[in-house]
């Protein structure tokens, strides 16, 4: 009952913020933060106590009574929503300020409140019809947030692509929920694992939610939308919106029976997304596009955990299934935290320099020490390095997979390549973030814009600090968060309630704390040495040249050149080069661009084929009414002939 009251207060606050969005930024932010806090409290309560909350209305909407439910799974996602929603809102106060964006600042506030509200509804609704309505509304709110800066053509194109891809996914969801309602006789959702005939519908759900989650071949909308949206919007898109897809997959793989091969398919999709996501990220020169591809990678890691949990269900193995799922779910939180942090950091860079192009940045740590260090912290976390949170969740997934190795049978065959490829993903992610931090923050500025960079203000720094604190907290004290994961796992599969916390988790926390203390001491010692004045400063890139310039630094492309070469088969990079020739070469240049391979090489040719067929069909519409009547006759005769054939 208390949960219900707190949630009602949160709902009131978010509706107030929706109204406040048109009054002024201050009351909007206040109401939004209040709703975030209440939602966080409700979710935290459910996760801590394990008492799910359920409510059915007496009134009907669309002929169905409203059925809300906050159990472990939805509470986990609601907590993430509260944190990222609040942080992004506070960040936008300065980043998308009234003064710089007089037209779209108000729209930004309004749609943001709407988006957060719709996310909450998606998480709470336990009725297929209302779920679809909330899902569609959130898609639309997110679309209007993406095109806030709609004067630019590429922003509009990105928004359109997002909308089109989302609707393709929603179409599958419409089919999914309608079939479900037709089979069960009710739109009401809930555990129905005993209906074995519902299993094939899982594929529809996987496609529909997979588009939103950005699983590898379905990720086409994700890079451009994340790159072109304002950074606080990118943060919530990457932190929460794509997690809604994961929520759908987790929710319905828990409630519905799954086909026997579903677990392995999800694992395979996860592995492909993880490896290729990071490969594409390495090929990017645009800071935010690179981060967007890392979302694909992290979605892959989450899916590996979820997939192994589904496999474990099929094998009846609670122990390692629960570990893998807990790892995947913790990675939902972790990715939400550090990816939001990274996007906000990228937003600060964009705000300070006006460009996302990494080859125009460089040397920013001098001007923006806060942004640089917070971004670096996020980079360490996303690369899965100890002592931060990325390591903890990947550790849990690894633990689950290692335990799966002890089982006889198919699990071993699948687990070994998954482990190897996940490890490879981690290494590649580290390489990628070394590249980002090195090119953007270290070295010398590559353009005048980078030279004039300035540190962001407190409203932008605060949310980043808060998200970074979250990353550190989960990294240093993972055992504190285990009960929440335990509740979520129990809500996913009712029989998995007595899974003990892995013993290594406490140990891991202690090691992390020791590492963190050592790192702080080391940093303090270095700081003191550097500031005692005994160090001489010299140029970094002084390889025997008399007059080194900023252009002689490694570029983003050259840094990752070797690795992108390994993946050239899928990245299909486009290169234009004029090699230096003769003794005194006149000019030489080299340009490399990684296309959106899936979009440009697969989807677009298919779309062109459809357009061609439509163009041919359009010749039938020439305006001659006589011929139209002829078509009518042909149609009538065809229908008559069909009826005749049918009746015989």
């Amino acid at each position, binding site marked *: 009952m208390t949960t219900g009251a707190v949630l009602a207060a949160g709902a009131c606050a978010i509706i107030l913020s929706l109204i406040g969005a048109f009054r002024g930024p201050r009351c909007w932010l206040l109401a939004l933060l209040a709703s975030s806090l209440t939602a966080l409290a409700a979710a935290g309560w459910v996760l801590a106590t394990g008492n799910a909350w359920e409510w059915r209305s007496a009134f009907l909407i669309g002929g169905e009574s409203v059925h809300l439910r906050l159990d472990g799974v939805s509470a986990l996602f609601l907590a993430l929503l509260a944190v990222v929603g609040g942080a992004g809102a506070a960040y936008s106060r300065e980043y998308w300020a009234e003064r710089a964006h007089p037209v779209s600042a108000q729209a930004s506030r309004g749609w943001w409140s709407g988006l957060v509200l719709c996310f909450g509804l998606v998480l709470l609704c336990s009725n297929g019809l209302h779920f679809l309505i909330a899902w569609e509304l959130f898609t639309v709110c997110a679309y209007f947030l993406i095109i806030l800066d709609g004067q630019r053509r590429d922003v509009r194109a990105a928004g359109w692509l997002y909308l089109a891809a989302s609707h393709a996914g929603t179409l599958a969801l419409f089919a999914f929920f309608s079939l479900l309602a037709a089979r069960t006789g009710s739109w009401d959702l809930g555990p129905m694992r005993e209906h074995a005939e519902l299993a094939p519908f899982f594929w529809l759900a996987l496609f529909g939610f997979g588009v939103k989650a950005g699983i590898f071949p379905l990720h086409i909308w994700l890079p451009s939308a994340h790159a072109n949206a304002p950074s606080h919007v990118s943060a919530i898109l990457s932190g929460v919106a794509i997690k809604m897809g994961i929520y759908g997959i987790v929710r319905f793989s828990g409630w519905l029976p799954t086909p026997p091969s579903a677990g392995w398919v999800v694992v395979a999709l996860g592995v492909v997304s993880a490896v290729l996501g990071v490969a594409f990220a390495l090929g990017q020169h645009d800071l935010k596009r690179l981060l967007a591809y890392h979302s694909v990678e992290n979605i892959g890691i989450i899916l590996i955990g979820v997939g192994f949990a589904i496999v474990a269900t099929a094998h009846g193995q609670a122990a390692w299934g629960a570990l893998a799922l807990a790892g995947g779910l913790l990675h939902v939180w972790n990715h939400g935290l550090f990816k939001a942090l990274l996007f906000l950091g990228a937003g600060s860079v964009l705000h300070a320099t006006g460009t996302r192009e990494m080859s125009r940045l460089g040397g920013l740590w001098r001007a923006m020490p806060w942004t640089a260090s917070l971004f670096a912290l996020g980079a360490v976390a996303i690369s899965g390095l100890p002592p931060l949170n990325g390591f903890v969740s990947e550790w849990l997934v690894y633990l689950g997979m290692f335990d799966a190795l002890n089982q006889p049978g198919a699990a071993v065959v699948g687990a070994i390549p998954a482990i190897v490829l996940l490890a490879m993903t981690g290494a590649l992610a580290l390489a990628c973030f070394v590249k980002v931090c090195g090119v953007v923050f270290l070295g010398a500025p590559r353009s005048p814009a980078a030279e004039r960079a300035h540190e962001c203000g407190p409203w932008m720094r605060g949310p980043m600090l808060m998200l970074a604190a979250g990353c550190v907290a989960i990294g240093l004290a993972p055992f504190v968060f285990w009960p929440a994961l335990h509740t979520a796992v129990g809500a996913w599969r009712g029989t998995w309630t007595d899974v003990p916390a892995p013993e290594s988790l406490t140990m891991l926390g202690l090691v992390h704390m020791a590492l963190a203390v050592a790192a702080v001491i080391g940093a303090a010692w270095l700081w003191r040495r550097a500031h005692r004045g005994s160090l001489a400063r010299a140029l970094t890139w002084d390889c025997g040249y008399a007059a080194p310039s900023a252009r002689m630094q490694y570029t983003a492309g050259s840094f990752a050149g070797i690795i992108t070469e390994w993946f050239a088969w899928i990245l299909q990079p486009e290169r234009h080069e004029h090699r230096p020739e003769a003794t005194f070469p006149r000019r030489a240049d080299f340009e490399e661009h990684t296309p959106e391979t899936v979009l440009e090489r697969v989807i677009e040719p298919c779309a062109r084929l459809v357009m061609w067929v439509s163009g041919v069909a359009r010749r039938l519409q020439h305006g001659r009414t*006589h011929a139209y009547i002829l078509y009518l*006759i042909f149609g009538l005769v065809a229908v008559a002939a069909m009826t005749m054939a049918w009746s015989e």
Partner: protein
Amino acid sequence: MNDLLNLLIGLAMGLNLVALGTSRLPSLIRVAALQGMMLGIMPLVIEHEWRVMVLVIAVATVIMKGIVIPALLHRAMRTANIDRDLNPLIGFLPSLLLGAAGMIGAVVLASWLPLLPEHRESLLVAGSLASVFTGLLLLIGRSKAISQVCGYLILENGIYLFGLLLIHSTPLLVEGGILLDLTVAVFVTGIIVDRIQRAFDSLDTRRLTVLRE
């Protein structure tokens, strides 16, 4: 009684051929009017006892199809200053041949259809199919708007004939409603013909292609 009905329908089928063969618009209008009047008196032939409603409908049909609609069309023709359909899409001889073939096809199709025993003897179905085909042929083959309206009228006559099959189960009020629709349609078409003439300086509907998207 069936003989009288079949005679009327046979005459209407003959009028179809006349409509297909003529290039003069006044005679086309006259043919459509005559056919409409014949159809108008058919309920009186079919019904055994004359109720007031049947009588009213019959009289109204004859007045509308025989007098009002032709008058409207004549007026449209005069304002458009036109009395011949000179270059049709399908020539007069080919359309005549097609019409004859259609009539034979209609008779064959009607004998082949699973009809009720009491309809087997009458030409109702064959005549209705033939009229519908003739109307469509006129709509497709003629270039002037007024001849197309006549085609539309003949098409509607065919549908009306088919409707007579159900005269015992369809309220005649429905027929009355259809009649009213038809009159309004022709009335509107009369206005449109005038507008087309003014805008395009011709009644050739082929010129309307410029209006497409």
